[in-house]
């Protein structure tokens, strides 16, 4: 599903590489944690996968295709098959929770009936059905994060990527969200979670990719947070 071949990424104005020579391969149906301290390059990695940015060097393949060579008109279809929960949420503040979620359906050309059915369902999954009519700017950070998750889920994408999905949540809710991601994974969806939540990583015992200052320093099945070289 996702394949990185000696991928390096350097942002325009920066001297340092955000990612350096990173290689890995993720197959369909996997659940993968991407861990590392702040600035390790976790978000950068996810941004590469949805082609928010292009790698400076190396080959990044998503759904078997080199995303650097993906023509612009194919971008919408790539992004519709990946549900992304952004670290900075990227919600439309002056719209309601349901509008934000409906948005992702609407751009794919879903019918009104479809939207009316799917949006409440997915808001129920993340526990936000009561807040459907509230505007996003009136929600707490944790609630906004869950709106982002609902939006990522609503299209039933084949890959879900969550950047720090538990960052603003209390441990109980964080666990709920992670359990939700796990059940989605069990239904066949590939899940990538970038996090530095040690407890959760250790508890779930899934594949862990370790990043440190842009370098991949470990990739373990059933890993735990602390990587020992």
């Amino acid at each position, binding site marked *: 599903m996702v394949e990185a071949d000696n991928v390096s990424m350097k942002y325009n104005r920066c001297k340092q590489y955000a990612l350096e020579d990173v290689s890995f391969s993720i197959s369909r149906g996997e659940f993968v944690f991407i861990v590392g301290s702040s600035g390790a390059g976790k978000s950068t990695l996810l941004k590469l996968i949805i082609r928010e940015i292009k790698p400076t060097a190396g080959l990044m393949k998503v759904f078997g295709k080199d995303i650097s060579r993906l023509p612009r*008109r194919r971008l919408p279809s790539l992004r519709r098959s990946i549900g992304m929960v952004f670290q900075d949420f*990227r919600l439309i503040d002056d719209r309601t929770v349901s509008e934000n979620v409906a948005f992702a359906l*609407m*751009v794919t050309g879903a*019918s009104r009936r479809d939207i009316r059915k799917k949006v409440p369902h997915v808001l129920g999954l993340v526990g936000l059905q009561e807040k459907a009519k509230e505007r996003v700017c009136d929600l707490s950070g944790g609630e906004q994060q869950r709106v982002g998750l609902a939006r990522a889920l609503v299209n039933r994408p084949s890959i879900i990527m969550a950047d720090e999905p538990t960052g603003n949540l209390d441990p109980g809710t964080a666990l709920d969200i992670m359990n939700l991601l796990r059940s989605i994974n069990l239904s066949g969806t590939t899940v990538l979670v970038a996090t530095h939540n040690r407890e959760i990583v250790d508890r779930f015992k899934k594949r862990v990719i370790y990043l440190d200052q842009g370098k991949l320093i470990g990739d373990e099945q059933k890993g735990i947070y602390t990587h020992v070289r």
Partner: protein
Amino acid sequence: MFVSGLGYIIGETFKGLYRNRWMCITSTGVVVVTLLMLGLFMLVNLNIDHITETVKEQVEIVVYIEDQAAQEAVNDLYKQLSEHRQVEEVTYVSSEEHMRRLQMQLGGMLEGYDSALDNPLLASYEIKTVVPESVVELAEEFETYPAVSTVFYGQGYVENLFAVTGVLQYVGMALMLGLAVTAIFLISHTIKLTVMMRRKEIVIMKYVGASNWFIRWPFLMEGLLMGLVGAVVPLVILYYLYQYSIEWVAGNNLYFLSLLPAEPVIRELAKYLIPLGTGLGIIGSTFSIGRFLRV
């Protein structure tokens, strides 16, 4: 996209227009002025063509006979006119004939008016001159003849009109071109304001997989609507203005200025103004979106 998307696009279009209503009104206003001018020029042009056509077939000088003139004096006048060296042809037109022509010109407007009882129109002699250039001199001379009420000459008048409008047309063209460019600029600026306000939203839309067209539509519609309103308003103004001119011309007995009927003329104008207006709007909006779609 045209199932749920359509409602969204229409909603966004009007929201965008409302949020920038002042800029919107300004841009639309410039389109209105541009197309109003263009429409006016087209209207004048069409009618000048029409008038010169009809004038060519018309007599050159009309000598109206005094209402109370004795039959003898009228006969003398006829003799005087037809024996003039510069006159080629003299035709008598009775007041009844004038009334009949007027009724034809005005269509049904004088329906039921009993001209036999009360006919305010004068009888006249219509005169063709040997050389058209002498029209003005001759008209002045005829005015001094006894039993003459007024003398009228059409062609020279129309030619003057021609000369004036010829210059006006060049000035107008230049002005219109300038205005059209301004209109495009203003429309694109107005839409850019909406784009800027929704910049974040547009980027988000891109990341959840919106196609460029989906994002573009509301902005295109915004421009298109401004252009369309900018074309319809001048058409309405021109329609009433023109209707008024027709009535004014008729009311002042200037029936040699035979204007074209209003509806077909305005319809003809619409064929040009509406595509032009919407075109200006669409060009304006395409200038403003491009940059934001490259994410």
